[in-house]
């Protein structure tokens, strides 16, 4: 009797744990989609909030998040790629590079709220940018940096050494071999890492809390030196700070759904790049 039961218990346990994990994902998606999709409409994503943010759309928040993510990419991508190039192409195994690598891993583990503080101290106060799109974008850029370095280095590492040697052997300088041969081969991998990192950055809230995000703004488009609305913060605000929380639930659900669609879309495009690339190999 016991003998027959045990395998069921064993499988049951593992299936249960795995099932629960899947259930979490499905529950999240189901709840957001079932309750959010009714709020979703063209008007919702193409108009500004109205009536004290109890009606209307989320256009300024969408624009804010897009601009913010763009700034993040513009800051973190070149910087991160250069650093990854240094580590993978130039650095020797010295104490200095070991410190750099350790720093990167530790930066990746620093809580995002601490990046927020750093952004506040450095950009908002130190560099006198005030609470602004630029300050928040720079902060998110710093946060994304370690991930971009790690993924880019991984992509560079996969370029075979024979490619570098081929370039050098026809008289290219090391920089030329990196620029003309190594980087082009590494692009798909780098792009995957970049997009995944940006999808993470797009969903971050803590680092922008005190560096520039605003509750409400009466104009959709933003400027670098001005405050902005952002999807994740808008969701936070609608669900905790708004004067009519119950009444704006549908808006909150709609915002959450849009946010998650943006993030998943970025993720899917990363999977797609990865898949396309693996097919070619």
């Amino acid at each position, binding site marked *: 009797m016991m003998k027959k039961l045990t395998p069921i218990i064993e499988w049951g346990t593992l299936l249960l744990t795995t099932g629960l994990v899947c259930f979490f994902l499905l529950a999240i998606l189901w709840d957001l989609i079932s309750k959010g999709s009714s709020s979703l409409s063209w008007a919702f994503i193409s108009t500004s909030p109205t009536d004290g943010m109890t009606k209307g759309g989320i256009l300024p928040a969408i624009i804010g998040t897009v601009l913010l993510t763009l700034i993040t990419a513009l800051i973190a991508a070149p910087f991160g790629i250069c650093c990854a190039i240094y580590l993978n192409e130039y650095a020797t195994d010295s104490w200095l590079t070991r410190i750099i690598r350790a720093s990167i891993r*530790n930066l990746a583990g620093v809580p995002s*709220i601490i990046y927020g503080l750093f952004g506040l101290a450095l950009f908002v106060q130190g560099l006198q940018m005030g609470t602004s799109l630029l300050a928040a974008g720079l902060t998110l850029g710093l946060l994304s940096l370690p991930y971009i370095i790690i993924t880019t280095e991984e992509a560079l590492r996969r370029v075979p050494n024979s490619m570098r040697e081929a370039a050098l052997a026809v008289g290219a300088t090391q920089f*030329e071999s990196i620029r003309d041969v190594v980087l082009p081969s590494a692009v798909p991998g780098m792009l995957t890492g970049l997009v995944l990192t940006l999808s993470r950055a797009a969903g971050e*809230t803590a680092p922008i809390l005190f560096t520039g995000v605003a509750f409400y703004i009466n104009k959709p488009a933003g400027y670098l030196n001005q405050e902005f609305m952002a999807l*994740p*913060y808008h969701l936070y605000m609608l*669900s905790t700070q708004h004067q009519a929380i119950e009444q704006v639930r549908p808006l909150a659900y709609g915002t*959450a759904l849009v*946010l998650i669609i943006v993030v998943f879309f970025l993720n899917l495009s990363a999977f797609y790049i990865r898949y396309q690339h693996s097919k070619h190999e």
Partner: protein
Amino acid sequence: MKLAIREKTDQAAKLLFRMTGLMVIAILAGIFFMLLWNTIAFFLKVKPWDFITGTQWSPSGTPANYGMLPLLVSTSLVTLGAMCIAIPLGIGTASFLSDYAGRKLKSVLKPAIEMLASVPSVAIGFLGIVVLGPGIASITGQSNGLNALNGAVLLAIMSLPTIITVTQDALEGVPNAYKEASYSVGANRWQTLIQVTIPAAAPGILAAVMLGVGRAIGETMTVLMATGNASAFPKGFFHSVRTMTATIAIEMGEVPYQTTHYYALFAIAAVLFLMTLLVNIVGEYFVNKYRKYQAA
């Protein structure tokens, strides 16, 4: 001389790349010194001992109290709860993925876990408010479900993907020889998993747990939204708590710069920083140890 220019460019590029490498150190050092500087400024006004052992956090009370113990305990409580949920689930799922699931199932489950990892923390916090909180409230008969338990469940969901991925790597890294030895004395898959594979992968699993803990300690938005944020000394899972991260998030916007309260928040951040640093270093130690062991 074109060649000379090309070689100059090469040198300049090398210098630039190297600079960016150094900048990374500068950033970490910058964060560290920013925290240190402000923490020192804080300790000039409040005794470190009072800060660490004080049981009251009321910066705008009269007199102001800067005791971070309740925050520390809250963070620990929520993290502990999260790990109690996430560790068994994570190890179970990772075991299923590495030893039980077929290739097809795996190719569905892996992206699903990556998807779960990418759900933004506000979205999770939001569901904590609208779904889990009311759920907990109605089950336990409380007025609202914004408490430590809610936060713990949500943090568990957030740290699960990390724990699953790293644990799975560890389990799959266990040499086949161990498993075969176990099977050859008549053990079945389950016995092998529990008694041989998991113990052999222990360092890797520990690393996974550490990374999960790091994630949970540092998470802000979810706990800010879901735990009710009462700064009183936490009494249990069914009470509202206020973690270190939530405290910073709530109060940083509303303090005048360069005041004691402002410095106090940096001091909390410094403690948070050290905690995550420690957890990451421990995690990394085990990851490395496990790598060595894998190579052997």
